[in-house]
């Protein structure tokens, strides 16, 4: 007995150059805002970018992007709709308003199904907004999208750092490629964070400052991309490009 859906997933992703899974050990560190803004920043640099919201029970990228009333486009599967220049996929396409109560096995099944039906076209980057934590989604992404690079989001908070460290240990153990860690809501590089990453052999990708004007700009593209936060994310995007090219060469 073979699950034929698994066979399609590789083909669905065959035109995607690289998958970037944006993850964090815990919630509330700004992971979804960073994924969405990073996708927009890379797109602004002329890259072809997709954004996949895998936070199935708490999707939020549609709120950050300010999109509403999106419907799936059916053509031998689902074509991700275009949103501000991005190819976009989220469960909100199927259920905009209602909460989706899912347990682990359902989450895995839903991820398999989403990856099997979504027809991504040629992309330089597919950014995946992962749900917080070390759960089924992280393991599924490693299992099903096995060439994904992980980009982790931390904050200067010791709690965030500790959970990111645990996630890093898991990823290292699973031999998942790690692009590095970005520190959000930081005014400057936290030296301790940088050092503990170096001990693990993980790259520190830089700091993104706390921006009190960010919340107000969410959902409004013109405002969002003019925030100081977005300027920092553009720098992150440039760093991501540099690191990816280094990794490909080495």
């Amino acid at each position: 007995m073979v699950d034929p859906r698994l066979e399609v997933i590789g083909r669905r992703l065959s035109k995607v150059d690289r998958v970037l899974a944006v993850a964090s050990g815990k919630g509330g560190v700004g992971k979804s805002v960073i994924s969405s803004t990073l996708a927009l920043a890379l797109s602004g640099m002329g890259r072809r970018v997709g954004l996949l919201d895998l936070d199935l029970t708490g999707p939020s990228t549609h709120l950050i992007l300010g999109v509403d009333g999106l419907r799936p486009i059916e053509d031998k599967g689902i074509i991700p709709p275009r949103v501000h220049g991005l190819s976009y996929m989220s469960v909100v396409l199927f259920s905009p308003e209602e909460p989706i109560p899912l347990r682990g096995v359902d989450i895995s099944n839903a991820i398999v199904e989403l990856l099997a039906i979504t027809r991504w076209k040629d992309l330089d980057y597919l950014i995946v907004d992962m749900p917080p934590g070390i759960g089924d989604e992280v393991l599924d992404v490693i299992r099903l999208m096995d060439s994904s690079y992980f980009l982790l989001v931390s904050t200067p908070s010791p709690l965030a750092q500790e959970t990111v460290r645990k996630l890093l240990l898991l990823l290292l153990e699973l031999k998942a490629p790690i692009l590095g860690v970005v520190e959000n809501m930081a005014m400057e590089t936290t030296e301790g964070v940088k050092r503990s990453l170096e001990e693990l052999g993980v790259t520190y990708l830089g700091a993104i400052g706390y921006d009190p004007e960010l919340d107000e700009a969410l959902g409004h593209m013109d405002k969002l991309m003019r925030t100081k936060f977005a300027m920092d994310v553009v720098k992150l995007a440039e760093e991501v490009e540099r690191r990816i090219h280094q990794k490909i060469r080495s």
Partner: protein
Amino acid sequence: MHEWALAEGVISTALRVAIEEGLEEITEIVVMVGELQQVDRDAFLFALEQLRTQAMRRARFTIEPIPARLRCRVCGEEWFFKREALDVDEAEAVHFLPEMAHVFIKCPICGSPDFEISEGRGVWLASVRGVRMVG
């Protein structure tokens, strides 16, 4: 589940199984489809016909639907999924993503959305029969 995605998966999995088992021609492909997948049988057969390869030119496609049995995790009630219980939009959402059933379906006894799908979720390639290569 979307019929094309499913058909593509079935065809390429069947070809892989045929190679593994040394079949030079495939004569029958049996697929079990959980009813919760909301697969349209005709659309699925059409997609399979379109994707049929040389190695399976005479193969018969057999589709076995498996009724979707649901079990409430709160009160233990068991019941079968009925398509008629959903309106058009809901049925479409479940068709694209079967887990959406958890949004639209509640336990008929206690009203909880916390139920498990004990049977009839997923798709399985049950068997690939064919003619073995000689020698």
